[in-house]
């Protein structure tokens, strides 16, 4: 695990290192329907790992198992191991709430809280965990800077978050997640509802964040994966077909199905 001790720039975390994530023999179900069928995959610390694959292959389900959001779906269950810095988050006595504070998540559609101001949105995570509002201003400011949103919103921090553009809302959601000071960032198609310019800004942001977090990025956009991901994992029908350095996955895939997918033959 790389522990970069030199932190010249301002960071919102004391430790400033992400946790590596190892998924072992993970099965995930919706009632009896098995959506993830025994997946083993590693997400190295301080790297961006992209998960690609056709619609319905289980990417979102896999990612939602990493912060134990999967079990919030009625009838859903999971078995197997997800090792977070070598601690299995599915072992007995682990509080899913604590897991979610260590593994942040950004969703496909920006979902700021419409009743809260911009600043309250950013501090929502710690406040929902019971931290007082006054203690959080500095943390919120840093998170907004980290998300590259500070300059755009610094004059309207107390305005409603609904007034922001889609791209700004998504960066607000990223700031909200960073303010939680997690170790791992899960991003489930964070750009698919955005225009190309906003997409580019968020990609730059993700690259900047990897020095402090471990990033798992689900994407339908193959060129996005080649642009920013260090590693790429290809899923099909609930199974992991192939994973490895992005360059190798796209240039010399070992599996014929991976080759067909990355060259656009299907999906």
């Amino acid at each position, binding site marked *: 695990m790389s522990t970069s001790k030199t932190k010249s720039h301002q960071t919102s975390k004391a430790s400033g290192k992400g946790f590596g994530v190892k998924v072992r023999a993970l099965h995930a179900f919706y009632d009896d329907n098995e959506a993830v069928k025994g997946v083993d995959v590693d997400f190295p610390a301080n790297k961006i790992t992209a998960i690609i694959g056709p619609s319905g292959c289980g990417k979102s389900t896999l990612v939602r198992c990493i912060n134990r*959001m999967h079990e919030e779906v009625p009838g859903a269950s999971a078995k197997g191991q997800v090792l977070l810095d070598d601690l299995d988050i599915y072992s007995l006595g682990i509080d899913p709430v604590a897991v979610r504070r260590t593994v942040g998540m950004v969703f496909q559609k920006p979902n700021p*809280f419409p009743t809260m101001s911009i600043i309250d949105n950013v501090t929502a995570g710690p406040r929902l965990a019971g931290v007082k509002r006054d203690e959080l201003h500095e943390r919120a400011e840093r998170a907004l800077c980290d998300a590259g949103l500070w300059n755009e919103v610094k004059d309207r921090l107390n305005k409603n978050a609904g007034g922001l553009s889609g791209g700004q809302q998504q960066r607000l959601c990223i700031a*909200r997640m960073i303010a*939680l000071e997690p170790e791992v960032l899960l991003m489930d198609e964070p750009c698919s509802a955005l225009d190309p310019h906003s997409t580019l800004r968020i990609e730059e942001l993700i690259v900047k964040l990897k020095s402090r977090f471990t990033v798992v990025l689900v994407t339908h956009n193959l060129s996005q994966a080649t642009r920013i991901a260090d590693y790429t994992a290809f899923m099909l029908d609930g199974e992991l077909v192939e994973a490895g350095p992005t360059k190798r996955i796209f240039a010399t895939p070992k599996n014929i199905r991976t080759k067909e997918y990355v060259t656009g033959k299907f999906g």
Partner: protein
Amino acid sequence: MNTLAVTSPRRRRVDSLARWALLAGVVLALAPLALVLLYVLKRGVGALSLSFFTTDPTGAFFGDQGGIKSAILGTIEIVALATAIAVPIGVTLAVYLNEIGRKSKLAMTVRYFVDVLTGVPSILFGLFIYIVFVVGGMLTGFAAWKGSAALALLMLPIVTRTSEVSLALVPDSLREAALALGAPRWRVILRVVLPTALPGLLTGGLLAVARASGETAPLLFTVLGAQATTFSLGAQMNSLPLQIFNDVREPNPQLVTRAWGAALTLIVMILLINLAARLAARRNHLR
């Protein structure tokens, strides 16, 4: 291709026929409402004056009969207490139904009984309180709070159902966002779901208030009535529906006019509450 653009004469005839039929239906439905409003306005407006609102009924056989101050205040007091009982319970039930119980057997059973409660005639709520608290048990006698209890029973299903609908309108993505931030479920409900649904909850509460304000039957058995203004919820109390009910049966034309004045006052109050409910709903819509 241009056959698409031509509407056949027959279709046009059917269309205009349907339009007229609909218009006739609308007129037929609105006419009674307009007639009631106009008639109450015509009969009641003569009774209105400053003293009408600032004096209590005298109850004297001759001479000045007084106004309806005690009735207005009584209605406000009784309905306020009923709201204070029904809204917290109703919203809590709705939170259970929509956030926790969802499709479970218990939730479906609760929903069924709430629906049954909606259809119960209001006089039965009065009768129920009458049997339990007025003639039976330890707490015998008429009192304002017993009327509030009867009205609260009437309001409960309305509040529960409208609240459940407004909670269901809160997008799941907001619940997910809050859960993913590591919030326990009860905090998600308290800090995210309820504030987001607030305008809808307000609308439902106000509609229930409007409905309860005009009810007579549940009050007849429970608060009985009074002449003087009182702020004691343990005492008998006047209210607008009771005032109308009693006055309009009197042979004294002064009293009958007062009944129409009270009716007009009640209608205006309910219209205002409905207006407030609409405004609250509009705020919800803009979100």
